[in-house]
């Protein structure tokens, strides 16, 4: 049985009919066709599916689509604006913070939430904030470097705000 939900997705209002059992991650990937959000596991351990709900990072494989009714959803697609990479994206590229890129959307969304909360995190704070994200190929050294580089860049440029909702 379908239910109607309305939410803001990356700043735009969306209304859809969903079955209650539909996971938010499937809604995002299959209904909204926003395939930047990945599915990396069946047990809610990997963090590849992280998006922001009202500015708070959540694993979208452990949230139902119906639970997003009335909320603001931000996915990795919101980072790049006007064809220009967000400083976090630019830093992951520059610092080789990715190899296969599978974990990268989740890494960047966690990093985004961290930097919104704490613009100048030290290495330990970065590692702590990313401890719900698993990367199986790059290794974390370059990912941490990327977040530090992004933090430095964002302080310089007072980065472009993106739609993240009330919580951030």
């Amino acid at each position, binding site marked *: 049985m379908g239910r109607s939900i309305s939410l803001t997705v990356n700043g735009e209002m969306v209304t859809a009919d969903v079955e209650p059992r539909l*996971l938010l991650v499937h809604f995002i990937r299959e209904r909204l066709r926003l395939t930047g959000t990945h599915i990396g596991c069946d*047990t809610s351990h990997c963090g590849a599916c992280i998006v922001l709900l009202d500015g*708070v990072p959540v694993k979208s494989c452990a949230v139902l689509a119906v639970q997003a*009714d009335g909320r603001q959803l931000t996915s990795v697609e919101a980072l790049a604006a006007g064809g220009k990479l967000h400083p976090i994206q630019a830093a992951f590229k520059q610092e080789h913070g990715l190899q296969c890129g599978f974990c990268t959307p989740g890494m960047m969304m966690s990093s985004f939430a961290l930097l919104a909360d704490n613009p100048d995190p030290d290495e330990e704070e970065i590692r702590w904030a990313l401890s719900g994200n698993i990367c199986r190929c790059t290794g974390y050294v370059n990912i941490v470097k990327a977040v530090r580089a992004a933090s430095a860049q964002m302080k310089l440029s007072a980065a472009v705000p993106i739609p993240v909702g009330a919580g951030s």
Partner: protein
Amino acid sequence: MLPAPFEYSAPETMDEALDLLDALGDESKVLAGGQSLIPLLKLRFASPAHLVDVNRVAELDFLDEHDGVLRIGPLFRHKAAERSGMLASKYAVIAEAARQVADPIVRNRGTVGGSLAHADPAGDWGSVMLALDAEFVLRSKRGSRTIRARDFFSGPFSSALKSNELLVEIRVPAADGRKGGSYLKLERKVGDFATVAVAVHLQMDDGKVKSAGIGLTAVGPQNLKADRAEAALKGRALDDATIKEAAALAAAAAEPKADNRGSVDYKRNVVRVFTERGLRRARERAQGGA
């Protein structure tokens, strides 16, 4: 993987939620943070006909301390516990456990009450509440009852909760005077469930132990309360010999099983070492803090 189909309701008040649970009985499951339940639904380890989502019931999300009782709402999130300055300054065992439950993203949604209701023997909050000698208020449409944490857990993923009941409040005797606590957790990697963890809460009076609480995680069919170790501490000065004696009693209370995280002897030894360390740390905090 997709969960099996279910009906879904998202009540906005506790009364509405209780009405639904009462009408639906065994067919229903409460959905709180969803960080245990949704993975179970996906794996089809659970397939309730109806989910009652309580996330919009604001009256279930609170933290306050008055009249000698700390009250925690079941919907209080792990993250809120991690960030509370009041808990950090007065209930070290809660604050220290909070930052070690799961990973930071799971903590954004997971709730203290959901974790207790889930009754995972490897869950962290159960041991914390046993150490604090907490009570849980369980409410149904037909009335409410209060049960001590030690009587709540009844085996792996089993508790005293009935299908029409909601855990609506966690009550902890307020910490007064000199108190200290700690939560030590051994995990294979950050964010993992415990191989072993030990919760300690101490109240001191005039250099002597007024009360001691010790809870053990992942070393039995449920979270365990190390009663004999607690009793051995009561009324005594916390010297090294007393600490060692209590640690040996806590290790004896553990009923670990061998698995890929470690052997029986290994886990029991970790209980001993962590109880010792935890008591020392709690003692320091009790001396330092008001």
